[in-house]
């Protein structure tokens, strides 16, 4: 019987012990090119990250593409070996005790892949129920429960190749929950789902957390993270640049308001001039259809709208709005690019 690092679901000395614990975790990918003179290349995808997730918590990892979110999840579910550092899930070390970890976690990823297209939804679930050692007597009931939960009842006998993206995603979720995992890893689960489907997905995730499942979620959608996550870590360039509750992040990064100026054709140098204004913390430009939107993050108490307008010179200006910062503003400022 392998020794557990700690009793993950208990309090030790009055302190709650983490269900997921990550300490100084790094992952470097090495590749080489060329037939005779092979050139080696190294990419540091994750650079010494630390975080922990408590039982029953919904923890979000936010970051741009290539930030290291999926690599982190893959190390935690034992699909990748860390280069250095240490991680444990439910007290089991992800390197030394992979099978113990695999028994207790579920993994759902976004997109079209990860299913047997030529089989029906029902056959997919039957197969994964076998793989995850769901007792044969329970399989039928469990599969029907999950089909009901994800709204695929009545469509389960159709081949997956005929499913819409939303249906596939819902089937992914059912698959990930077959063995009642204590910890669920959701890697961009709402990618490609329509708004109604995404709302249903958020409701499902909330219900799982209410029933005690610990969830680690990665997403690009700020409102999703804001609505669902108890705590968030923002990851960029393989490092955690900030973490806390969604409200903490909003407060910590942009304690002042945001001025949004719709402009048709931002001229060169405008961003630098606005950035140089007294009271401006940062400026980013977002493309919105024909227009660009200058997002000017302002120091608390500063009034910069008139100065910003004067920097725009002859540019055609549309709507100008001043509003309180959102999680997305915080994220953009932390990550550094719109």
């Amino acid at each position, binding site marked *: 019987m392998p020794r557990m690092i700690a009793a993950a679901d208990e309090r030790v000395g009055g302190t709650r012990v983490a269900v997921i614990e990550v300490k100084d975790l790094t992952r470097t990918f090495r590749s080489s090119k060329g037939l005779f003179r092979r050139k080696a290349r190294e990419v540091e995808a994750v650079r010494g990250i630390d975080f922990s997730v408590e039982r029953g918590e919904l923890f979000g990892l936010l970051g741009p593409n290539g930030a290291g979110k999926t690599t982190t999840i893959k190390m935690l579910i034992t*699909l*990748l070996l860390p280069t250095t550092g240490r991680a444990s899930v439910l007290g089991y070390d992800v390197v030394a005790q992979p099978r113990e970890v695999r028994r207790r976690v579920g993994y759902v990823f976004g997109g079209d892949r990860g299913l*047997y297209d*030529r*089989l029906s939804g029902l*056959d997919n679930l039957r197969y994964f129920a*076998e*793989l995850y050692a769901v007792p044969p007597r329970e399989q039928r009931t469990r599969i029907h429960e999950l089909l009901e939960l994800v709204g695929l009842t009545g469509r389960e006998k159709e081949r997956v190749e005929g499913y819409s993206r939303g249906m596939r995603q819902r089937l992914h979720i059912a698959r990930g929950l077959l063995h009642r995992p204590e910890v669920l890893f959701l890697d961009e689960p709402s990618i490609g789902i329509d708004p109604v489907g995404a709302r249903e997905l958020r409701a499902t995730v909330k219900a799982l957390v209410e029933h005690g499942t610990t969830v680690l979620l990665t997403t690009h959608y700020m409102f999703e993270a804001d609505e669902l996550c108890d705590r968030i870590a923002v990851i960029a360039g393989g490092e955690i640049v900030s973490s806390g509750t969604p409200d903490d992040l909003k407060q910590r990064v942009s304690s002042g308001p945001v001025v949004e100026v719709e402009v048709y054709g931002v001229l060169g140098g405008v961003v630098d001039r606005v950035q140089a204004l007294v009271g401006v913390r940062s400026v980013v430009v977002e493309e919105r259809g024909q227009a660009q939107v200058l997002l000017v993050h302002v120091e608390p108490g500063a009034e910069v709208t008139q100065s910003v307008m004067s920097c725009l010179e002859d540019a055609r200006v549309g709507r100008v709005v001043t509003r309180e910062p959102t999680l997305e503003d915080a994220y953009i400022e932390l990550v550094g690019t719109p």
Partner: protein
Amino acid sequence: MLRLVLVTWWLQLKIRSRSAFDGLLGLLWPLFFATTVFLMYRASGAEGSALLSAAVGASVMGIWSATSTTASFTLQQERRQGTLELLVAAPTPFPLLIFPVTLSMATVGAYSMVATLLWGRFVFGIEIAVANPVAFVLSTLVTVVGIGMLGFLLAISTVRYRSAWAIGAALEIPVWLICGFLIPLDLLPAWVRPIAWLLAPTWGMSAIRDAAEGRGVLVDLLACLALAIAYGLLGMLVSRYMLNSARRRATLALS
């Protein structure tokens, strides 16, 4: 464990049976082998037991081809559709998931045995006179298992390589030759024979021929079974190293 093997085997057969293209190719492929072999033998003036031997050899070629080329290709397909990671992330030992996959391919290949013999009988007029039908069927079953286990070892040994499918394709024809599917082992250079003895299809092929011609099959069957078990054990040992290597090199996914 038996249930897992049976369910996986059945679902893999289901996957394979649902593509019209794969199905058609699977139906036609053994007939091309058989036609080529029968024409070659007929052109060289062979008749009687020599033609029966050719028919049996061609049929086992089909079983091997179905297994070798698809065993490593299937892993590539699993990798491409994103299911390889899910198989590895499951708590069930990986070899237990791969064995029924390769066994299902060998089962599909077993069809080629029937198709080749019928093709030989009705198109080329070869008299299929099997002296010991029970031993013949038993030998065929054991050969299917032996070839399935060799495919299993091949698949497990190449799981960490993204281009593993090429290895299966490269081994297809050498095994036809080395295992004596078409020509007697005695015609091969002496140094090749020890390699042939380490390959289960050599013994399976010999057992099927002996059964067809009424000779004893026990030694060949036992050798084929022993090698199949050895491949299984070796595959279990190798899988741990190969999976760790794939986790280190991040080759379970395409990107």
